[in-house]
């Protein structure tokens, strides 16, 4: 929070400005994921590859893929990060 915007008379407070609402958004993502797993029980799965038959395959694949992606990218940054003026100073 570098520049916390203070609500002023001219600018009303928004719904997302309140921390508890951000928390609501966060937990609703969890709930949506749970519901999507439950929905799989009621759906006739027809898929192209064998591994897709595993329960919740696409969900867990996405979760693992994204966590791995971010952690790998974070490690990559240690090697590749340079100051913005890197190519300018000759």
């Amino acid at each position, binding site marked *: 929070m570098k520049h916390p915007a203070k609500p002023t008379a001219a600018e009303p407070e928004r719904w997302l*400005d309140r921390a508890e609402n951000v928390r609501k958004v966060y937990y609703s993502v969890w709930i949506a994921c749970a519901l999507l797993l439950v929905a799989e029980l009621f759906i006739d799965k027809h898929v192209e590859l064998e591994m897709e038959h595993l329960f919740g395959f696409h969900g867990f694949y996405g979760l693992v*893929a994204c966590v791995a992606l971010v952690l790998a990218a974070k490690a990559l940054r240690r090697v*590749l990060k340079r100051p913005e003026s*890197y*190519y300018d100073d000759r």
Partner: protein
Amino acid sequence: MTIAEISPGLTLIGGSLLIPLLRGRLRSAYLVLLPLLGLAHLSLLSMGEFGTVQFLGQKLVLLRVDRWSMVFGWIFMIAALISSIYALHVRAPLQATAGVAYAGSAIGAVFAGDLMTLFVYWELTAVTSVLLVWAGGSVSAYRAGMRYLFMQIGSGVLLFCGAVVQMNATGSIAFEHIGLDGPGGWLIFAAFGIKCAFPLVHTWLQDSYPEASEVGTVFLSAFTTKLAVYALARGFAGTELLIPIGALMTAFPIFFAVIENDLRKVLAYSLNNQLGFMVVGIGIGTELSLNGTAAHAFTHILYKALLFMSMGAVLYRVGTVKGSELGGLYKSMPLTTVFCIIGAASISGVPLFSGFVSKSMILSAAGYGSYVVTWAVLLFASAGVFHHSGIKIPYFAFFAHDSGKRCKEAPLNMLVAMGIAAFLCIGIGVMPGPLYALLPYAVDYQPYTASHVLAQLQLLMFSALAFSVLMWTRIYPPEMRAINLDVDWIWRRMLPGLLRAFTPLLRAMRRGAGSTADATVRAAQASVERTHGLDSRLAKTWPTGRMGLSVLILLLGYLLLYYL
């Protein structure tokens, strides 16, 4: 010759010449009218080859109309319309003129029936588009533009050489299936590969697009790389090598996208990733996968332009698109926020948005073809693209921590352009029928099955969960004012560095070589001086008596030899 026998690219190229002559509202009206005329021109075309010319014993086909050229012709013309509307607020005529001529060149290229005509339009796209990079106006934009031009012209030179080799080998320059059987095929493959931003030659894209003006990037995102996709699809469909190349293209840029701060550069990386899907589709080479490639190029042009337009609007209003400087802009730019989210949902393949109905075809084709590893990489890339384009772009620009920046909503012309693109993104997603009807082959594909929709929703929602948890726990790498090295480091830093390191050595060698050469020349001069100089033996005057004696000796010698 009727209008139906002239390339629709020429409508835009010829029409663009008038743009600088017009001013104010008249020019605005003309800029909207011109692509509309282009669309009308397209609707008048009928299948076949037109405008054939004999040139140096070869048949040039200036206009070839078939299902491949038509589907790209339509989407290029729509992109030209949207980009022109997006450019209306710019007062100087250069960008609109260059942009429309660039669009016309790309359209001319997809209707070219032979390699020489293709080459001419290929180079025209390069020289018209670099003006859009330079329109960015900074020194770094100028330099990036030079690097861009070098790669683009280089691609054209390879195409020309390949066409000549191909002509000698096969006797024809018709642009049909080429394949990798001969050296000509490889040269042309390399030419297309550079323009398609294959791995290791991809950096011109991330280098130049974020440097262009807000309008320039929107034009740029639509044409060059999709022209390359079209050319690959026509020349190299079913070339197995394209499958690993494409899979690599989908995967590696997303790592860079996660840690990149410049949000237009993030989009440039995700552009590369999306091209990968199309390249895989070309490599698999079945009717389903090629349809998938054409469909994905069509939807991609729209949602990519939409995303670049929303970031362009932010750049125009705030003056920066660096993630570390932005945040909370939804309060100032609510409509732009909505349009950006629609673009983000489309690129991520959320059901009911356009990306879903096109990307699914390529993934299914990989699945049916039992390319298991490729399929797994594409699925990883689908999750990854949602992560950085779907969430990161809207999140860091419009939400995240409030940067305190307040600005006006985007100008009306930008909103209209974004609105059209957003409408098409949703329209195609909800009703894919009309797009499927345009595709090169008959479509027998149903994207909306319960199983498929659920699988995609799971993939996306759990990816969102990963992002949320990593953000919540502050593990997610924060946006930083920094750049990240890519392979262009080799020719921007390493090679010049090596050259500099060797400069003293080279200089010493030159000095050494110089002094050796000097000494040799001086020695030669001295010896000439010794024999031929003033007072030297050969320059002396000889008495007549000695001459007579010499002749006598010669004659005696001759006499002697004669009798022996």
